């Protein structure tokens, strides 16, 4: 249950921060654009265990939290950012910028054109970013490892079980998670297509 909450909230926060960031990055012509983009992508490079340890030392301990859930969610949100920025960015890059201009010519204000045309065109990209984030968060182990006081995620729970001995419940859980992941992947493939999700390699 904790896993679900963390995954849903972190995905939501990741998108809430990542999508506007991707938009700003795509539209601006700042010199620091590449640097900012790298900041958003950096959670992919930093080992998750390091991020987990840092959050543990800098937030969880100093704040004397009884329940680490907020820190856990924060960690996952940081982890989700690259997906949100990268995937949304990829679909933005494929986006026909002239469609928004066409809407302007037909009488739409910039805000109206964004909501009527650009956002709906981005929807598949945002949707796939959400799915990808959700799965990543739901299955995450290394980041969660140090941050589970008071609330444990499913992979950690499973790790504990395995550490204590082989139990058929683990096999059952694994099967369920695997099946769920396959279903989600199937939905993603049918609605958007994998090529699109993983950076939009070929249309």
């Amino acid at each position, binding site marked *: 249950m904790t896993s679900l909450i963390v995954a849903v909230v972190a995905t939501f926060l990741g998108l809430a921060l990542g999508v506007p960031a991707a938009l700003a990055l795509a539209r601006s012509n700042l010199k620091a654009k590449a640097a900012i983009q790298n900041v958003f992508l950096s959670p992919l490079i930093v080992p998750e265990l390091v991020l987990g340890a840092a959050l543990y030392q800098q937030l969880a301990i100093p704040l004397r939290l009884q329940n680490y859930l907020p820190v856990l969610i924060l960690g996952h949100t940081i982890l989700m950012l690259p997906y949100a920025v990268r995937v949304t960015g990829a679909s933005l890059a494929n986006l026909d910028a002239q469609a928004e201009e*066409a809407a302007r010519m*037909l009488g739409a204000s910039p805000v*109206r054109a964004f909501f009527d045309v650009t956002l709906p065109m981005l929807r598949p990209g945002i949707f796939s970013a959400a799915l990808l984030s959700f799965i990543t968060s739901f299955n995450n182990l290394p980041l969660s490892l140090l941050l589970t006081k008071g609330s444990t995620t499913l992979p950690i729970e499973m790790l504990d079980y395995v550490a204590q001995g082989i139990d058929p419940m683990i096999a059952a859980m694994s099967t369920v998670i695997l099946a769920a992941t396959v279903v989600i992947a199937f939905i993603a493939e049918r609605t958007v297509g994998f090529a699109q999700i993983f950076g939009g390699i070929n249309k």
Partner: protein
Amino acid sequence: MSVPAAQFVNITQTFGDVVAVDDISLDIEQGKLTTLLGPSGCGKTTSLRMLAGFSKPTAGQILIEGEDCTRLPPEKRGLGMVFQQYALFPHMTVRDNVGYGLKLRKVPAAERRKRADEALELVGLTAHADKRPRQMSGGQQQRVALARAIAIRPQLLLLDEPLSALDARLRVEMRAELRRIQAETGLCVVLVTHDQDEALELSDQMVVMRAGRIEQAGTPQAVFSAPASRFVAEFLGYENFLTLADGRRAAVRPEQLRVGAAGDPDAAGDLLLDGTVTDVAYRGVDLLVTSEVTDPAGQAVRLVADVRGAGPGAFVPGQAVRLAIAPEHLIVLAA
């Protein structure tokens, strides 16, 4: 005379150090089709985007129906525009695409549907109203884009290289289609293109641009029969240039250069040039014969003649020939 549909008044546009449009003034006449023609980077698209409202000129004024619109954003100008890559809304049906401008104008749904269907009928796509854009071919999508732009009944229709994404045959078909639609609607159209055939076929007024300036403007016939400069002549397909005895430069089209055997007598008044064939290319309907001859100024020049109906063996490289140009086909250039 009525007020021009649009006017550029001393318009300059710079991007950083680059001068994209350099002090142009131009009147777009009501009900006519004006073409901005030129190679890429000549400022034609920048000019159109300033007229559309997407970019603000660095200096000068844009007037629409006599009113200063220089600072007005695109959505307040009421112009229609068709883009190179169709720019349809993929998440809407064809009918909703066409009706979008009317929806923004708060036209009631029934009226909106009627007018969208009318616009679709005009472009011959009535049967496709409920499809999504991606279910249609490129040519059909471009017609939807046209219907969408026309549906708002714009004062002025802007076409930004609308046919360049289509294949060659479709392009020719769509030209005829554009002519028909313009004749039926009486719309004032500004067309940007780099295709001289398109410009010659469609324009009432043709504006040839180069490096941000207007090189020559006039009816297609006026510009074609008397190009003002070598640049315009080259752009319109004059491939041969030579210097006359008095030092002036002149141009000749390949199909107006006659090739005969050396020493051939010819009609009085023709300019005769003696030389040797250097290359022959057989192309089915015609034969391209390249010869090196001495022009009246005594310089060696290479001229290409387009000989209709000649077989591949009619001329061979190394052959001595005499080229003849009738005086009316010798276009003397001002610059």
